[in-house]
């Protein structure tokens, strides 16, 4: 029983991480139609910022957390301003190639300027403890990761439903031109989308750092691929779809880990994608996606 509770919490934590990163992709995609494959390097940038701050004497975990959130938000907004704004009106494929280009450039910069090898960042290791809850032993990090993801998603939902800019972002996902006719600056909506996406990546970065205790140049790339799959499962462009898709992917992965005999553990990734393909055969538009999701962009 304890094993199942632990694995359940494990799945919640993985799912939360995928959901956070997938939401970051979906927020930008819903508004700009851009799949930002450089999102992983936003996570890496935040982690490297913490690494550098620790190198010059930062030792407070809460300061490191704040720094990671701020750095990720700033990195994301900066990428939009420098790399994506010039190609905003270009075909979708140009944006996609730009994103891959930015991703490769940043990974190489991390390698050249810091090191190609993983660097230790122990400042958040203290978050990783063992908690005893109602007779069960669980990892504090995993519980906190789930709570942080839930809190972030809750804050995002509030922002999107209550604030004028949030409502404008929901409207822009369907019909950007008409949002501009309301006198709302396109740059502001897009910068806010990137800022939100970045802060969500920052939350994920905190937990990745706390778990791994190190940073490496390619640390974000694999995660973004997973988040991309989560978005596809949930329905690309749908925010709730990204969150549900991320959580589902976490549960599929951990479920397979539990179900597969140890000698077949290597099949986990392959079987995950078999399940993903099966879901897409059944619902090609993703679980929560629909053709209307494209709205006026279809015309």
């Amino acid at each position: 029983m304890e094993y199942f509770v632990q694995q359940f919490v494990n799945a919640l934590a993985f799912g939360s991480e995928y959901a956070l990163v997938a939401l970051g992709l979906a927020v930008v995609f819903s508004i700009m139609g851009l799949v930002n494959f450089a999102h992983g390097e936003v996570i890496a940038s935040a982690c490297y910022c913490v690494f550098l701050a620790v190198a010059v004497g930062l030792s407070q975990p809460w300061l490191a957390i704040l720094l990671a959130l701020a750095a990720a938000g700033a990195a994301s907004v900066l990428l939009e301003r420098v790399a994506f704004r010039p190609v905003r009106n270009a075909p979708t494929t140009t944006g996609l190639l730009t994103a891959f280009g930015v991703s490769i450039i940043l990974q190489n910069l991390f390698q050249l300027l810091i090191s190609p090898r993983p660097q230790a960042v122990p400042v958040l290791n203290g978050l990783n403890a063992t908690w005893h809850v109602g007779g069960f032993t669980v990892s504090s990090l995993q519980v906190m990761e789930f709570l942080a993801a839930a809190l972030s998603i809750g804050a995002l939902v509030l922002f999107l439903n209550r604030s004028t800019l949030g409502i404008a972002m929901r409207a822009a996902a369907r019909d950007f031109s008409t949002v501009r006719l309301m006198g709302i600056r396109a740059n502001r909506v897009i910068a806010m989308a990137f800022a939100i996406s970045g802060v969500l990546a920052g939350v994920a970065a905190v937990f990745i750092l706390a778990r791994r205790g190190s940073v490496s140049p390619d640390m974000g790339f694999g995660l973004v691929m997973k988040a991309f799959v989560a978005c596809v499962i949930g329905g690309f462009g749908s925010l709730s779809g990204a969150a549900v898709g991320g959580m589902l992917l976490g549960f599929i992965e951990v479920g397979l880990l539990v179900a597969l005999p140890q000698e077949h553990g290597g099949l986990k990734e392959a079987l995950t994608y078999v399940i993903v393909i099966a879901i897409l055969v059944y619902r090609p538009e993703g679980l929560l996606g629909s053709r209307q999701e494209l709205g006026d962009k279809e015309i």
Partner: protein
Amino acid sequence: MLQLEGLTVSYGAVQAVRGLDLSVAKGEFVALLGPNGAGKSSTIGAITGLVPSKGRVILDGKDITRLPTEARIVRGLTACPEGRHVFANLTVAENLRLGAATRSDKAGVAADIDRYCTLFPVLGERIAQAAGTLSGGEQQMLAISRALMSRPRMLLLDEPSLGLAPMIVARIFDFIGSLKADGLTVLVVEQNAAQALRFADRAYVLGTGQLRYSGTAAELAGSDLMSMYLGA
């Protein structure tokens, strides 16, 4: 209030509007008429800045040709686009609130929302409902109300009668006509010339991107252009 000088709109090799000169005085109600494909909506698009154009767009004596759409709205222009373009995934209330995005007076915005809900009771009844669930006529009422929420000085209306039942069209035009009494400057693009000319002071007629006629609404109503271009 608004002047267009040599306005040209091109889509690749096709010129939708060719060197159009047009002016609308403050408080005037002007109709821009013409058959399908005449370049009417492209003209509106060029005025709002959503469609790239050549020539000059002048608002209140200032050249706004190079300003982005958002900056033109802040200067008192507003537009109700063809096909209504209500935000289908947002509620009626959220649509109206976005219309007032450039305003900071919360109480005034709330009062205006109440005002349009009284004018169009169906909006009040469906205030928390997604705008996509409204009928075409109701969406048009919402789109016009949303455009007016910014308290504009000039309203651009693109085909307000499109796809609506005659009774609804008459009602919507009655409302648009009443805006003139409030001192609002209106430029309305219409294929339904008879409705537009009920309230228009002046009219321009476009044909294949060029100006075919300009004059008072009364003169146009008596001319054979009505049958030549507008099928009325």
